[in-house]
Each structure stands twice: as C-alpha cells, then as structure tokens.
C-alpha cells in the first residue's frame, strides 16, 4: 500500500498547475496574437518560474517531467505511483 501524501504535496502541485495554466492560456493567446511582445515577455517569466517550481517539487516527490535528469540510485521513480488520477 502506497504512502499517504502530505498536505504540502497538494499545495505545491496546485501552485505548479496554476503557473502552467497561465502559460497555457498565454500560448493559446499568442497563437492568434503572434506580435504581442508583452505577452511573450509574460510567457517567458512564467516559463522560467514554472521550471523552478517543478525542479523543487521533483526533488521532494519524484519526477513530473519526462526526460529530466533523475537520482542515479534505483528505483526508477518515473514508473512509480502515485499517478495523477490516483492522488
């Protein structure tokens, strides 16, 4: 039986979901507003911020992103639970 996740896991995850959501909204906006320099600047700001949040999250709770460097010690954490629909 898998361990129970701490409350902090959900708080940190939601912070990432919020930033990634802003990125997604900016991407769709930029797809039809390709010359908006301010939106591109905002996109870059949030993209860098998202990267920091995810790196921090991954150090505590295992990989979020495919193809990123992982700890060299087994087990192979990518294939470990919990999966998104389980938490």
């Amino acid at each position, binding site marked *: 039986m898998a361990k129970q996740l701490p409350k902090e896991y*959900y708080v940190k*995850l*939601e912070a*990432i*979901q919020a930033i*990634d*959501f802003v990125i*997604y*909204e900016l*991407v*769709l*906006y930029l*797809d*039809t507003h*390709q010359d908006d320099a301010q939106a591109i600047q905002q996109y870059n700001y949030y993209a860098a911020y998202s990267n920091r949040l995810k790196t921090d999250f991954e150090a505590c709770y295992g*990989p*979020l*992103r*495919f*193809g990123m460097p992982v700890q060299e010690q087994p087990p192979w954490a*990518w294939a470990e639970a919990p*999966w*998104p*629909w389980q938490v």
Partner: protein
Amino acid sequence: MWSYEKKLMYPVKVSTCNPTLAKYLMEQYGGADGELAAALRYLNQRYTIPDKVIGLLTDIGTEEFAHLEMIATMIYKLTKDATPDQLREAGLAEHYVSHDSALFYNNAAGVPFTASYIQAKGDPIADLYEDIAAEEKARATYQWIIDQSDDPDLNDGLRFLREREIIHAQRFKEAVMLISDDRDQKKVF
C-alpha cells in the same frame, strides 16, 4: 511527438460516492462532443489548414487530451470502490458485464465511440466552423451534466472544463478571422 507530464491540468476532486455521475461523465469521455473526439478532430485537421493556425490546432488538441485525463480521473474515482450492486443501481450493469470497472470510450448511453463523430472536410472555413460548433456543444454538455450533478467538488472541475470550451471557441473564431483577413494576400507564395 508528445511527452507526458505526471500531473493533471486541474486538481480534480470528487466528494460523494455516486457512480451514477460516472455514467453521465462518459458522455464527455467517449461521446460525440467529448474530449476524445475534440482531440482527434483538431490534431487531424492540422495537416490541411493554413500554416498560421496549425499552432492553435496543435495546442488546443493537446489540451483536449489533458481534459480527457481529467474526465477519466473523475470516472475512475467515482467507480474504483463501487460494488457490482452499486454499479447496477447506477445503471452501469451493462457496462460492468463487459468491462468490470474499466474505462471505455462509450457515451452516457453506452454507445461506443466512432470516428464519424468528427469531420475533416479539408476546407479551412468548414473545418474551423465545425471546431467552433464542437466547443459550443461541449460547453452545453458540461452545463447539462452540472444540472444533473449535486456534487460540489465534481461541479468545480466541470466548471473549469466548461470555461475552457469558451476560450477555445474564442480562439477558433480568431483563427477564422486570421485566415479570412486579406492583408497578407499581396505577399509572395
């Protein structure tokens, strides 16, 4: 190619053990105006549409898979601990005898998914208008599911998904305007 990120787009929560809601949600899983149909429709239309809107179809099509995963999560949470008796009471006995509690691309009435739910006419205006209509139909479907559901947490996730349909419809409308605009026509091809 695509690469997976191990998180949901939105924190899905379900507060009541009510497998009947899972049956309704199947409309958005394997139904005509559901998320699978949406993803397949947009990604498939990309190959025969002007370059300036391919990015939009790619990004919205990709987001639809994230929505599909949210719907799957809702159905999974509503059915994973349901007994055969509970599933029968929820009108899911027919589903159970074929699938146990496995998810399947059916609509709420148990009709399996078919490619004829989507269109690809190869005509940019016809295809984008179809996309706008698909978003409005999906928005309406979310409204009717919310009307049937009394689970506040589930409705919270459904409201998120309904709002996304509004944004997507807006962007598809802008795509129509972008390819209809004749400002670029003097450029050399």
